[in-house]
């Protein structure tokens, strides 16, 4: 399925998903979101960064779900770019209707970190300029 997504063969990826047995509902939704996100050209996650991104700690989504992935990936767009942090990664943010701020770090074309702030931070704070 991942190979089909990488090859941009989304119909094939959906076929594999249909055929996949033993997937939980959460896993199925996550794969559907992965296909949809790739189809829409959203910036992907770096696979090995996922255990750091999704964890039950302050500022992070506790679980790796389709909804959490969508919130983070949909934040990465020109309109939400805060700027380039001095160490060379891009910082994105957006405020949801609930008032919660989604924050995302992108480096080398992949999402490397992200989560949410109950109390939104300013652009200067997000760029670590105090």
């Amino acid at each position, binding site marked *: 399925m991942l190979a089909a997504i990488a090859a941009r063969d989304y119909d094939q990826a959906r076929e594999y998903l249909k055929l996949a047995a033993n997937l939980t509902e959460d896993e199925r939704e996550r794969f559907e979101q992965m296909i949809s996100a790739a189809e829409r050209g959203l910036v992907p996650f770096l696979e*090995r*960064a996922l*255990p*750091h991104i999704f*964890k*039950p*700690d*302050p*500022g*992070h989504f*506790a679980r790796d779900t389709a909804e959490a992935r969508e919130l983070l990936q949909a934040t990465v767009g020109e309109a939400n770019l805060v700027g380039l*942090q*001095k*160490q*060379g*990664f891009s910082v994105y943010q957006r405020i949801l209707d609930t008032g919660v701020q989604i924050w995302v*770090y992108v*480096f080398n074309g992949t999402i*490397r*970190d992200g*989560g949410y*702030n109950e109390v939104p*931070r300013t652009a200067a*704070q*997000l760029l*670590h300029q*105090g």
Partner: protein
Amino acid sequence: MKSLDAQQAYRAVASFLDSLWERTRQPGEFGLFCGMCSYIPGVGTADPAMWYDWLAWARKVHTGELVPRATGRRGSLTSETVAPLEPEQAYLAMFGFIEEYWNVVGRPAEIGDVLERMRYTPGTGPADPSIWPAWMTSIDKVVTA
């Protein structure tokens, strides 16, 4: 050298990491980690969870027990739960803190190289002799600020 409270010690960690990154100013895995660890006065760490990871490692230096990651338990740690740290204790806590992140994100070589240079032998110090003076400078900055 007086001991440091958990927040002072963390500010020294952030300053030290930044000074290491400034030596090369190369965007990459280590720079990304340094960015996540940045300390914003009055706000906390750039990645909010980094503060709690730090507290877990700083606490471990005294108690010998690490509050496990990804259990939701670290979020209840406070700086008051961590006893003051001597420079060597803070250094060892920092090493564990960095090493844990390195393990979680698939052991990128760039951070592995930094850890090799930082590896600490009691009585001798870090493998790279330039590391300890940089650490003490970072502590001085915090203490005299």
